[in-house]
């Protein structure tokens, strides 16, 4: 009956994540054998000169695959962590950054910023996530206000409000993209959730936002546990309810916005991962949040590997893969939520 203090539960997720990280660097139009990979890492870390026949591999690994892998892992962690937090805050099993319209809201902000400046300058790199964060906040607050009935937030209302806000912001985004010319067309590929950026710049740009946001969320596990009993009981148990609510909304929207800014709109990760974690490891948010973050990175890496393989040598945007897997999962969760026995 005591909470298991063991860190054992993190072992399996960490092993899976390591395998996926390795797989993501190895798999692609050119397959790089694990032995070669380890040799390359060893050489780079120890500062040795890389043999001439490995040189082309080195370029692929260090300039293309590694930054992409890092970006995808951070994105998966961000979306899944914020999904788990939104679910806890709204006490609603279907709160996923994509389904409640936060991701589309963030997308609008990102495109807005891009229409002013494409993100390959310092200002652009900062402006995109900041705009994206602001519109994500507006979207989540709008959805919350629209869906709320008194103090409760019915499952279906949240989704309906999410659809409305999502459609509205997507329409605005499309309008912006069509009315703009030239460079912005590239945003279309980005918006479908393909890691079309290359190099380390986007990774470095997303990193501080994700670390800050996920750091805050990971510390809110106990608070979210208390929040599951409703605002009034949480407050009677000594929780500063308003502060917790704002922290969750700010941090989850920040991580979502960062993910959307650099990897596009990728749906359902924030739904699939926290639910699977909840089924396997239970609903304690002190474990649920870090486990969702870890497994979110793993899942999106898997999806991205798949995206590179299904139509090889061409690539499919990873958002298509997650949607194909996520939509049926969504229906299954909806069915479960209706039965109301687990959530």
């Amino acid at each position, binding site marked *: *009956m005591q909470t298991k203090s063991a860190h054992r539960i993190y072992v399996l997720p960490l092993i899976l994540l390591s395998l996926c990280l390795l797989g993501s660097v190895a798999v692609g139009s050119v397959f790089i054998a694990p032995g070669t990979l380890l040799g390359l890492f060893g050489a780079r870390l120890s500062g040795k000169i890389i043999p001439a026949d490995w040189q082309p591999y080195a370029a692929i690994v260090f300039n293309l695959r590694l930054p992409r892998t890092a970006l995808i892992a951070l994105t998966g962690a961000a979306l899944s962590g914020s999904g788990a937090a939104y679910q806890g805050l709204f006490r609603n099993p279907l709160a996923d950054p994509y389904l409640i319209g936060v991701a589309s809201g963030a997308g609008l902000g990102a495109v807005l910023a891009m229409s002013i400046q494409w993100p390959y300058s310092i200002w652009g790199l900062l402006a995109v996530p900041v705009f994206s964060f602001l519109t994500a906040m507006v979207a989540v607050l709008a959805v919350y206000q629209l869906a709320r009935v008194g103090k409760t937030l019915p499952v279906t209302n949240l989704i309906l409000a999410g659809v409305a806000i999502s459609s509205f912001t997507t329409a605005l985004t499309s309008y912006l993209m069509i009315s703009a010319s030239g460079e912005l067309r590239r945003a279309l590929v980005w918006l479908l959730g393909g890691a079309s950026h290359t190099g380390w710049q986007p990774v470095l740009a997303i990193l501080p936002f994700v670390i800050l946001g996920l750091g805050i969320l990971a510390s809110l596990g106990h608070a979210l546990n208390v929040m*599951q009993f409703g605002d009034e*009981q949480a407050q009677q148990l*000594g929780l500063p309810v308003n502060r917790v609510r704002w922290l969750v909304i700010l941090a989850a929207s920040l991580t979502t916005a960062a993910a959307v800014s650099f990897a596009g709109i990728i749906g359902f990760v924030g739904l699939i991962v926290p639910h699977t974690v*909840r089924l396997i490891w239970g609903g304690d948010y002190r474990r649920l949040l870090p486990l969702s973050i870890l497994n979110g990175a793993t899942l999106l890496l898997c999806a991205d590997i798949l995206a590179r393989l299904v139509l090889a040598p061409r690539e499919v945007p990873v958002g298509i893969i997650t949607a194909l897997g996520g939509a049926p999962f969504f229906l299954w969760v909806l069915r479960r939520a209706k039965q109301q026995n687990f*959530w």
Partner: protein
Amino acid sequence: MLNVNDVCVSFSNNRILSDINLHVARGEVLGIIGPNGVGKSTLLRAISASIPLERGSVRVMGKDITGLTSNERARLMAVVPQARSLPPAFTGWETVILGRTPHISWLGHVSARDQEIARLAMQRTETLHLADRPICEMSGGEQQRLLLARALCQSAPVLMLDEPTTHLDLKYQYSLLDLVRRLAREDGLTIIITLHDLNLVSRYTDRVALLVNGRIDALDTPARVLNAGLLSRAYQLPLDVISDRHNGQAMIVPALR
């Protein structure tokens, strides 16, 4: 210990509570009775600062509770709400240990002492066997006792219970109220309890407040408040008060022919 001074509460220009004055001493059990919808639950929510006061103040040990943080407040007063819409997947243990929230860190690490306090609270409320069971598999009465255990974990000097006997069968009604009385007598808790069953009032409370239309109609010992005239007027139903032939306590029965 607990002072409620001239408290008024309104919801959208509707006066729910008017000029409530209560003084509850350490170790005292104050019962609150009254017909449905007179504001019994609202009064508890006002005292626990869950809703804003329009006027007046609530003081615990001289401290105005509206000026406290929710953490400081939760160390002074614990509330046992009515068991409704609890998160179904939480186990008994996970629920009870949350009562330590005002005493533990932001991250929620519980010490061995916190666990011991929780275990003791579950023992006293006869809920130890529910530790590993999810809430969704518990009866209303079991949930109610679990919430009492959680409130005891807060180690607060003031305890408020909102209709705690509603879902309980006879045996647990008496064992829960016996425990409530012991908590007042032995642990020196200050207790406010709203009750439906008037026959439990005379047995388990030291003083009773009769609430009618958001005002305190009578505030005195059970023997004085449980008076046929007062009650009949309050409940708009002819009532008789008869005396229990074992211990002389008041029993209230409808005087219907």
